[in-house]
């Protein structure tokens, strides 16, 4: 079956611009996660959705970052007034449930964001 997909695969933007990154989770997965991976680092948690609601957004770095999942499937990560420090690979993951034992997270290939 289809895995997690993310679009675009690459995004280059200028400082100060607004960007949207899209994630299509595996069909039927209720839990959806966003992570950010900076160069040479492991992924860092940003936000977690259970269904349509953001159950945990403690990893969002500041109020320029926002994410939605209006119908409980596709999610969009939105970044306002981008800064060069936002450059990273943004990863999306989904799982059938957030709770063990069926909580393996399946990751998409990521969107590489470059802010010039």
């Amino acid at each position, binding site marked *: 079956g289809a*895995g*997690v997909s993310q679009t675009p695969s690459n995004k280059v933007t200028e400082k100060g611009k607004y960007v949207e990154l899209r994630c299509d989770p595996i069909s039927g997965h209720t*839990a959806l*996660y966003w*992570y950010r991976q900076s160069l*040479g*680092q*492991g*992924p*860092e*948690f940003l936000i*977690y959705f*259970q269904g349509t609601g953001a*159950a*945990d957004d*403690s*990893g969002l770095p500041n109020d320029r970052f926002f994410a939605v999942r209006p119908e409980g499937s596709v999610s969009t990560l939105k970044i306002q007034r981008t800064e060069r420090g936002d450059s990273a690979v943004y*990863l999306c*993951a989904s799982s059938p449930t*957030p*709770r*063990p*034992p069926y*909580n*393996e*997270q*399946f*990751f*998409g*290939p*990521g969107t590489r964001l470059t802010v010039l």
Partner: protein
Amino acid sequence: AQSVTQLDSHVSVSEGTPVLLRCNYSSSYSPSLFWYVQHPNKGLQLLLKYTSAATLVKGINGFEAEFKKSETSFHLTKPSAHMSDAAEYFCVVSDLGDTGFQKLVFGTGTRLLVSP
């Protein structure tokens, strides 16, 4: 908060020799631990997971890891390296957080290099 430390940023082995990637964890409760692999331009893939059952966990592609509570370690091993094993490996601990839902905390990664 839960955390993991990967003790080596790079590990180089020859094809056919054993692989050892080291990881120590810090957790205030009995943790769930994972190893993920990331091949270039591909999504993160789960190799194996420990969730308080058997301490020796077998994963895909011949990898295994042993949970040692006394040493707070979860090292990844493979008896014989293959060229296709060259990738970035992440040790990961599950953090339930204040919401009680799982989010993953990644180490900084170990790059495995395999020479012919």
